[in-house]
């Protein structure tokens, strides 16, 4: 993969295969995610990109019958090793889903603080700081700072998604996984979140799954193209989109399938 010798890797997969029962949704994928970059994973529906993402924080195994072969290394430690706790791992990796999922019975404040509280954080002052910091990182602070204790459901769809981003970054994870985060948003909401990606990569390493190629082109530093579970090609984003090396990649990018 194209990474210079002194690029630090935060996350990498090594011959990762993800199975649902006997069916291989992800086949032997080895991918590197350099620190403080945005990597986009693109491909047609069913290519396994979401499944791959969910392997990175061990969410995949929560599905009955699902299993994993190969390794995922976070700072050179295999997260699938026997002595690694998935629950602890997920506190170091944040995830945002397709649809905004604020906790409906909690206020905006409590939603953002949820990840902190589960880690044992309890002191009011520390929580206040963390919440405001997270909301600022998610570009939501100005809109909600006067109503932190109102219900999260009062926010618009785009605002709720930014709330989910704030919730995900509040525990200061090292990696941020975004699974088609703008799929249910309007163009204005989409744009705000794409702007966020640029800002957030200074603090986190981001992996974003998207079915929108233009989004991948706008937002990411590296792009990986998957098809039918296999990694077809990966490289710097502008190279992938202007001079793809594999024919399949070119076919997908030019819209000939998918």
């Amino acid at each position, binding site marked *: 993969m194209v990474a210079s010798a002194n690029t630090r890797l935060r996350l990498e997969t090594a011959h990762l295969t993800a199975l649902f029962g006997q069916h291989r949704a992800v086949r032997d994928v080895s991918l590197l995610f350099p620190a403080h970059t945005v990597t986009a994973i693109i491909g047609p529906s069913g290519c396994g990109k979401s499944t791959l993402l969910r392997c990175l924080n061990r969410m995949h195994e929560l599905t009955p019958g699902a299993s994993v072969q190969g390794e995922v290394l976070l700072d050179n430690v295999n997260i699938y090793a026997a002595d690694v706790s998935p629950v602890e791992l997920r*506190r170091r990796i*944040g995830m945002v889903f397709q649809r905004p999922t604020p*906790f409906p019975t909690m206020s905006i404040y409590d939603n953002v603080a949820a*990840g902190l509280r*589960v880690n044992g954080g309890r002191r009011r002052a520390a929580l206040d700081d963390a919440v405001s910091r997270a909301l600022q990182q998610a570009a939501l602070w100005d809109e909600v700072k006067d109503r932190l204790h109102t*219900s999260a459901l009062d926010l618009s769809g785009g605002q709720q998604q930014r709330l989910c981003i704030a919730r995900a970054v509040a525990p200061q994870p090292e990696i941020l996984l975004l699974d088609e985060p703008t799929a249910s948003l309007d163009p204005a909401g989409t744009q705000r979140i794409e702007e966020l990606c640029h800002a957030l990569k200074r603090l986190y390493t981001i992996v974003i799954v998207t079915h929108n190629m233009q989004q991948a082109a706008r937002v990411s530093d590296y792009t990986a193209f998957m098809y039918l579970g296999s990694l077809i090609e990966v490289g710097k984003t502008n190279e992938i989109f202007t001079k793809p090396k594999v024919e399949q990649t070119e076919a997908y990018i030019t819209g000939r399938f998918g």
Partner: protein
Amino acid sequence: MSGASLRRHLTSRVMTVLIVVLSFTAVLALVLILGNLLVKGASSLDWAFFTKSPVPAGQSGGGVANAIAGTILIVGLAGLIGVPVGVGAGMYLAEYGGGRLGFVVRFVADVLNGTPSIVIGIVGWTFIVKPSGGFSALAGSIALAILMIPMLARTTEEMVRLVPHSLREAALALGYPRWRTSLKVVARTALGGIVTGCLVGIARVAGETAPLLFTALGNLNFTTSVTQPMQTLSLQIYVYATGPFDEWHRLAWASALVLMGLVLVISLTARWVTRARYGRIR
């Protein structure tokens, strides 16, 4: 319009009217019953009615204080036993109920829900009254709890299943352990529905008589001891309505009105809880 077509339209009209009339007959029955209750019972509701216990047969006056206290005590105790077990069983079904044990528990709950309450009364008598040597309010509460548990298990399961899977995932992705996800996110979101289910179950057992006939038995005196027989409004109504004295009949109507009022208040509270909470959960 041709003759056949006219006939068809006429039939449609007639059937529509018939359906509307029959529907409103059902509503009429309700109005009649509640109306009678109000008319025949309201005039007997005085202070003495609520604060005094029954007087010897044949005499006039007296009240149902013992029955009201008994209803509250027995139903309350039944709730204390039935709610944790029922809701707990329901949570089990929703969280871990996909396997064989879940299937069995669900099946058993459905069977128990359809069991006539008099049969529960027999079981209560044999299992609790006989060995313990006597009728008691506690036996009655246990019988009512047995009625409540399968009801609450199913409604709780339903309400928890309504919580979108995505919420569960969001919590897990944050690093919530499974038990905390279940309690603090899923159950908390479904809480309104669970509470409604509990209230509805309580309203239902508050009106029951059959399971209490051979467990709590009834008591003409005012008592709050759970190891003694105790009176409830439902038992009181049964005794008074089937008795020979006009005075008793009058008291039966009044007691029925009070019982109906109690059941209505609890049911309406349940509805209000649903509306208040579910307006927001989407």
